[in-house]
């Protein structure tokens, strides 16, 4: 992880459900569009199976999980791997707050699903900024650049 990237994003990785696709899209939106300089994706399977780079990233930086459903696999697995989850989000919660944005599709999301991912990503980006204030030791925030 580059030294000025201080927040790790771990999405749920599920491929069989719409909510998993939304969680992944939200994660990409944060990492590529909203906060590209201060966040980095870590794949759940790498972390759980003991990849050193993935484990070091999560050990050294605050971690945000984005789960698809209430099973919260990403959050559980980060915790069971011995790490702390700084903030956790679920697509399900976002959908409950935005019932008009009913996501559909797995390979490609419908427009509502894409909007839901964007709304969720913006919430996550705010959390990234808050964590950047709490952990200010690794460089500047890119909150203004988004």
């Amino acid at each position, binding site marked *: 992880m580059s030294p000025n990237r201080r927040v790790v994003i771990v*999405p*749920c*990785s*599920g*491929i*069989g*459900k*719409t*909510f*998993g696709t939304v969680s*992944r899209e939200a*994660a*990409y939106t944060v990492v*590529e569009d909203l906060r590209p300089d201060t966040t*980095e*994706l*870590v*794949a*759940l*399977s*790498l972390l*759980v*199976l003991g*990849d050193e780079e993935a484990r070091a990233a999560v050990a050294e930086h605050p971690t945000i999980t984005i789960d*698809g*459903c*209430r*099973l919260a*696999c*990403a959050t*559980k*697995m980060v915790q*069971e791997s011995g790490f702390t989850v700084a903030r956790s989000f679920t*697509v*399900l919660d976002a*959908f409950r707050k935005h019932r008009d944005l*009913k*996501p*559909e599709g*797995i*390979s490609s999301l419908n427009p509502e699903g894409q909007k839901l991912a964007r709304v969720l990503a913006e919430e996550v980006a705010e959390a990234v900024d808050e964590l950047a204030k709490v952990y200010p030791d690794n460089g500047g925030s890119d909150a203004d650049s988004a």
Partner: protein
Amino acid sequence: MPILPKKKVGIVACSGEEMPEGTVSRVAALKVLEELRPNYTVTICLPLFLAGGEGDRAFARFYPTVAIDGCEKRCAALATEMYSGKPAASIVVTEVIRRNGLGPIRGPRRLNEAGMQAADLVAQEVAHLVDELLGRTGREARGRGGGGDRRGFRGRGSGHFPLLLRLRHPGAEGGGERAGGHPHRAAGHL
């Protein structure tokens, strides 16, 4: 006469979000599940599998699985072996790319042309493996979507597993929310 569960193949994709090859594994898996062999495959959700989803783990203990990994770290194959049993077959995207001389794969979020080509090739290979594992041959295997035979599986061997092995895992779908529903079946919901 009880209705016996049809023998199917579980597809486990690494789905590694941080690299384009992980996205190739995911796109290829979905292509097999949704287009090429929808009637003969189920998805095994890797995060749920890792988190202790008993339905998915039990499925992979009793039914054949194909692991699709993005890279040589082989997370999907390793996880399957660690928690259930060795996958019946395993494919690594980087090997398929190398073997077919495809150009650089880019775009973990949106695959470039070479990435989509790689996903198609991987999906075709997985579909063939599914046919082999189920003993499907000839016209039956060539039928689009594996769906030519809607009366049920009729390959070599029984094609059906004992009722004893019918697996249920009520929590596996994250149920209760229709919008998160599953258009193709998950392993825990045979």
